[in-house]
């Protein structure tokens, strides 16, 4: 072997189906039933409006810090839409719309961001993991789940989400490497929203794309227009089908944009320009998708209005429920629950100490 270029078996591609004006590349249009298209549209609108409502709840001090998802609805809903109920999802902290799609109640979201552990458990019938805050750590959990699915000879898949920043963590690397080695049915969705708090994509890594990182593990990588739900859906479906068929893992980079602050504790004016944000506003995933649906003749402005009303009412109902639950004094003693299957004796002793103390000062006194 003198001096030669090395050719690599896996390929890295890019995919876009609906352009920024919502115009379609017909040759690539995925075959999605009307009903599903409309369901996805509704989920996008719900995700957006609920995000807005959470922001106002947070600004009013009715919930704590949270991470808005606005602008990333296509990127997450297109990814989870081809999943089955028996598949598993391992979200990061910015997949609220995908979680609702998968069955999480809005009430749970509000409770969790309101500081109540009660918001945490996913519904019993769903397999999705709770939100993972330590960046990229969940990739390995999805990998382990996928390994176990293969061991159990299921044709289910596991899907993990992370951000552009997450690709810098060691756990991302270890997860993808293991996924390649075991040909595990895991799909890694990287929502490249251009920012990791204040660090722009360009400072996160020197690589031109995040998708090409798949080459390090010889698994397929694809860069998708993440504000184009048809492209996201098509790429995810392809990857999921491959995984089900025993052909292993895929890395999908959804190129999208974090339209809001990183979390409500963040002030993006410190590090990015309005100009950049405005440029991305033009690529709004909901507007593009609506244009497509209207062109297709299955949506109209009137239907959109009805839908918006409907969604608003649904959100209001959830907020009311959640706030009622928060108002009912939730037992502070419950913090001792679920530490272990059985509370160890010394911790039990501490629980009793606390109980006495509570009795002495009254629940409110200590709880507040």
């Amino acid at each position, binding site marked *: 072997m003198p001096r030669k270029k090395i050719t690599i078996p896996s390929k890295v591609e890019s995919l876009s189906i609906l352009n920024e004006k919502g115009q379609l590349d017909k040759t690539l249009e995925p075959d999605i039933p009307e009903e599903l298209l409309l369901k996805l549209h509704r989920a996008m609108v719900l995700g957006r409006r609920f995000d807005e409502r959470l922001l106002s709840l947070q600004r009013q001090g009715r919930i704590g810090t949270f991470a808005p998802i606005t602008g990333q609805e296509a990127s997450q809903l297109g990814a989870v839409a081809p999943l089955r109920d028996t598949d*598993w999802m*391992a979200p990061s902290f910015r997949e609220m719309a995908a979680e609702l799609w998968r069955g999480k109640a809005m009430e749970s979201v509000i409770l969790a961001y309101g500081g109540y*552990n*009660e918001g*945490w*458990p*996913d519904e*019993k019938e769903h397999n999705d*993991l*709770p939100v*993972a805050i*330590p960046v990229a*750590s969940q*990739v*390995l*959990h*999805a*990998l*382990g*789940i*996928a*390994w*176990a*699915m293969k*061991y*159990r000879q299921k044709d289910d898949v*596991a899907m993990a989400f992370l951000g552009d920043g997450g690709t810098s963590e*060691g*756990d991302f690397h*270890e*997860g993808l*490497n*293991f996924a390649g*080695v075991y040909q595990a049915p895991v799909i890694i969705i990287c929502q490249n929203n251009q920012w990791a708090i204040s660090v722009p994509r360009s400072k996160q890594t020197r690589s031109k794309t995040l998708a090409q990182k798949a080459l390090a593990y010889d698994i397929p990588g694809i860069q998708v227009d993440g504000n184009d739900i048809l492209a996201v859906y098509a790429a995810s479906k392809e990857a999921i089908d491959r995984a089900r068929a025993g052909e292993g893992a895929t890395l999908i980079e959804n190129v999208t944009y974090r339209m809001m602050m990183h979390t409500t504790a963040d002030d993006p004016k410190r590090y990015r320009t309005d100009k950049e944000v405005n440029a991305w506003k033009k690529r709004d995933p909901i507007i593009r998708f609506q244009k497509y649906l209207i062109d297709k003749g299955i949506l109209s402005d009137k239907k959109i209005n009805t839908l918006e009303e409907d969604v608003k009412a649904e959100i209001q109902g959830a907020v009311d429920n959640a706030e009622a639950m928060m108002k009912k004094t939730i037992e502070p003693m419950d913090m001792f*629950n*679920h*530490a*272990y*299957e059985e509370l*160890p*004796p*010394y*911790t039990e002793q501490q629980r009793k100490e606390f109980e006495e103390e509570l009795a002495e000062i009254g629940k409110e006194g200590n709880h507040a």
Partner: protein
Amino acid sequence: MPKVTMVQALNMALRQEMEKDDRVIILGEDVGLDGGVFRVTDGLVQEFGEDRSVDTPLAESGIVGMSIGMALYGLRPVCEIQFSGFSYHNFHQIENHAARLRWRSQGRFQVPMVLRTPYGGGVRALEHHSESRETFWSHIPGLKMVIPSGPRNARALLVSAIRDPDPVIFYEGKAIYRAFREEVPEEEETMPIGQSQRVKEGKDLTMISYGAMMRPTLQAAETLQEKDGIETDVIDLLTISPMDDTLFVESVQKTGRALVVHEAPRTLGPGAEIVSRLVEKAFYYLEAPVARVTGFDIIIPLFSRENAYLPNVHRILRAARKVMSS
């Protein structure tokens, strides 16, 4: 009953649990054909195949994160971290996830995994191969931390750890992997996690230790009996966390004097917690300061000096006599 080493006893526990329960999967670096660098997993890949005894790439966070996922899905992974000195690579996966997922899901999920790893000095090893850092794990709520002291309890505790619904860190003392044999019954045997054991009864002095340090502790106890006429009550902790304080508290209520032995550095070693529990629960019985015979607050030196670092019979005797005379 056959007399076996701790390595063999651990192997037996793994083999029997794997036979009984196809949810039990072992994984880690070199656990397959190589049988693990200490041979604890010897023969298991031949018997159960590569799906049950999984060689992994060289990545500890990967191994532990993968185990967490497997456990969430309902399997019972038993991962091996080749030396405890490399288990800090996966510290975040344990602290941030393994120990919390039951709680974070309000009981919807659990993480019934075991992380086995060799710890401790005394085998003339390279750097990072001789530390004793059980404190790190024992301070994490939601986690259990077990350290057996010989073949029989190692086997029984490993079985219990595998069946435990919560994540367990399982430290195996390298110095006692092959140092002695014990009879271990073929038939199933378990031992409750979270319970210490009295291994010698006496009225004068309580000695508390665990793991590889049980041997010098028991030797010292014998010498104290023979040479000094001091009758020691010796407690083997077995589980470091959740710590069982009932036996040693009860013991000190009888003896009034106590001494703790561990290889871990003194500052914030498990001895600190033991002393604190005694102060909390047996203060008025204490007739002398509780002594801590421990590793020093320095990194354990390379092996030519490791015996100078590790607590030994002499050092324990010295401390015991001092406790008895104060």
